[in-house]
């Protein structure tokens, strides 16, 4: 697909490090529909974990459990134990709004606000009172745009509308918007599915840079992408977590027949 070499996994991260997120027996129902069945998985800190699996298997559903985005769907019911840094995400005292400041999200289709590039990035920090005055916000905006490797391209047109950017730039703007709130975890739901190979390559590079500071969970349909950017991979099938482990192992030597078939493209 493109000429980026698979990123090698550093040996010290090969074995599961301290988990950032631990999920135990997560079940999700959309009304009658049982979308996730007894999912238990650990997401390691400071690294990239990829969720793969056929369409409709519940990857997005699980991702949206992590920042409680499913709360906005009235018919959705989540049970089980989901913890971040050992703290129950679903405990009654925890406001999902604060959780989402810690767990940022990047969506499948770039969705910048129809406001200026600057306002797009500044919105989150202002909302959470992360900056006292204008100069501080300016700093946050610039550093977020730099981290999202977008700054050089837009530094002269921060007042332009976010929607005037190209698709790939828009997606990087969305990543900058998520980074600006200084989250610990960034969830990405097929962030490159609407992008061309070059824009995809840029985002993948970016993800690789970001993993030193953030815990990243990415849903992807591209096996190559999962292999390139992630250190760990989890394979979902019909609402069940079939297996998870170090990416190399999942791709080279899957334990499960279903995983092998999926990876080798024998079913879709």
């Amino acid at each position, binding site marked *: 697909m493109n000429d980026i070499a698979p990123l090698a996994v550093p040996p010290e991260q090969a074995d599961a490090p301290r988990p950032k997120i631990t999920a135990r027996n997560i079940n999700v129902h959309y009304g009658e529909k049982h979308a996730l069945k007894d999912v238990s998985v650990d997401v390691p800190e400071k690294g990239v974990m990829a969720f793969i699996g056929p369409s409709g298997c519940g990857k997005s559903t699980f991702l949206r459990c992590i920042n409680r985005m499913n709360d906005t769907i009235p018919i959705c019911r989540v049970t089980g134990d989901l913890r971040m840094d050992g703290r129950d995400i679903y405990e009654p005292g925890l406001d999902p709004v604060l959780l989402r400041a810690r767990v940022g999200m990047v969506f499948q289709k770039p969705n910048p606000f*129809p406001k200026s590039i600057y306002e797009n990035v500044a919105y989150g920090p202002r909302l959470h009172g992360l900056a006292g005055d204008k100069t501080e916000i300016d700093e946050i905006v610039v550093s977020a745009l730099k981290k999202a490797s977008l700054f050089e391209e837009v530094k002269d047109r921060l007042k332009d509308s976010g929607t005037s950017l190209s698709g790939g730039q828009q997606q990087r703007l969305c990543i900058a918007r998520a980074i600006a709130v200084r989250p610990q975890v960034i969830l990405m739901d097929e962030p490159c599915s609407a992008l061309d190979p070059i824009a995809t390559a840029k985002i993948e590079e970016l993800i690789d840079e970001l993993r030193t500071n953030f815990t990243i969970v990415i849903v992807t349909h591209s096996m190559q992408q999962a292999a390139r950017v992630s250190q760990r991979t989890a394979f979902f099938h019909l609402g069940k977590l079939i297996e998870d482990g170090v990416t190399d192992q999942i791709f080279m030597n899957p334990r499960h027949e279903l995983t092998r078939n999926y990876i080798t493209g024998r079913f879709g």
Partner: protein
Amino acid sequence: MTDTALAPPMTRSAGVDFDSTEARELLKRRYRAEARFKALGLLAVLVTAAFLAFLLVDILRKGIPSFFEHRATLTVNFDAALIDPKGTRDPADLREGDYQALVRAALQSQFPEAQDRRTRRALDGMISSGAVDDLRQAVLANPGLIGQSRVMPLLFSSDADLFLRQRDTLITRRTGSGPLRVEGESNAVTLRGGGAAFRAALAESKTFLAERRRALLAELATLPAAGSNAGVDTKRTELEQAAASIQARIADANAPETLTDREPSLLVAIGDGILKITEIGANEAKATTLIAPKPGSIITEWSLLTLRVPETNRRVNDNVSAWLEILAQRGLTERAFNARFFQNGDSREPELAGIRGALIGSALTLMVTLLLCVPIGVAAAIYLEEFAPKNRFTDLLEVNINNLAAVPSIVFGLLGLAVFLNAFDLPRSAPLVGGLVLALLVLPTIIIASRAALKAVPPSIKEAALGVGASHQQAVFHHVLPLAMPGIMTGTIIGMAHALGETAPLLMIGMVAFIVDIPGAITEAATVLPVQIFLWSDLPELAFQSRTAGAIIVLLGFLLVMNAAAVILRRMFERRW
């Protein structure tokens, strides 16, 4: 895997053959359908445009005259003895002065021959009572006028105004040919013109007779058959005799004609005077004097005026016509912009009636409606669309709001009458109550439009906001609402335009009363533009017809201004991004 969507659609195994007759036929049919649709669409647009153009042209043609008025520019002597008999110059005394007498004197100086009371009353009747008020205002504003003579514009009465516009009767002027010998005076003047000076005029009155005969024959034809009824038979013979006698008069082209007030009037303008012909022959005419010309027996310059409508059917008699004609001839009449139309409230006198009261009434009413409707409507829409739980109750609410939008407006008027006037005892005819009623009427429209606008905002924007940690309410107010704002404003403006044109419910709460004063507050009695139009259109006076059309123009203008404001506001909101 996921690329199945890209597979070509399954057609016949061979696919589409470009050159087959079938494919061509299909293509041709498709193009024909397209062309047909285009033609129909164009036709629909043209028909609509034609109707609209007709409506606009008609209203403008009828209404524009109401924006102008006719005035006599007469020299008024502000006689201290009449307007300030005590000599105090105190405004209270000045207000009491006899300004009517000033007008009377100004007219009298123009037409000194009008002496007997009836004639003088007719002369005074040419000028509107508004002119008297104007003089009073002028003196109150500038007491220095007292004792001076000034040329003042004096508003004509509506009848005189109609005459000057030639709406009362068509007037044709013909320059007289050849010298005219004038003999006798006052009521028995004989005019002798050589070379058949009056032939054309005589022929004209014969044509009029022919018309009348045709009318008689037409009436005859509608009568039932002879012998059925004695009454009908006498009527028939009467009509037949009348037609026969007219026929005899027509037959002899040179026989003189007697002109009564049932035939078109013929006036002879001689220099500064006007005579009215009572009997006309080809070379000779008998006349009475309306305004005495300068003495002299042989006149070379004269003209003949025909007033098409017989005197009995006119609002302005020959006497007044003559005065108006002479005033115009002396250059003492003017046509000017009718500022009064925009400054006055309603009036029984057409020339004084204005739409200021209704305009302010409409503005106040709409203000009440807007202030109530927009916050309540938009809040309700946001709640229902974004926050309300989906259950039986909210479903019921939604259905009822949709139904409410279809309730006839008169029902809202009855509701307003029962609730606001009878139960709450709010003042009758007030813009406050009108605004409340219209708010009820418009709320469903605004709620439905606002909900549609909110629904049209892509959910990804809300998700983005939630994703960076905005609360639900923040996401709605920071992102969804601003994006929905143009749509909400369109809905609001549609609702307001609807409210502006609404008449029926306002009739129920008494805004139909005859109100002269211009309302100053939302609790004062007022009327609104559409109701004013309704009221005026119902009046018999011809002069009110043009007022009605004028008021319609103002209403349309109001609407245009409102829509323009909405468009500008929309632009402002949209440019933020």
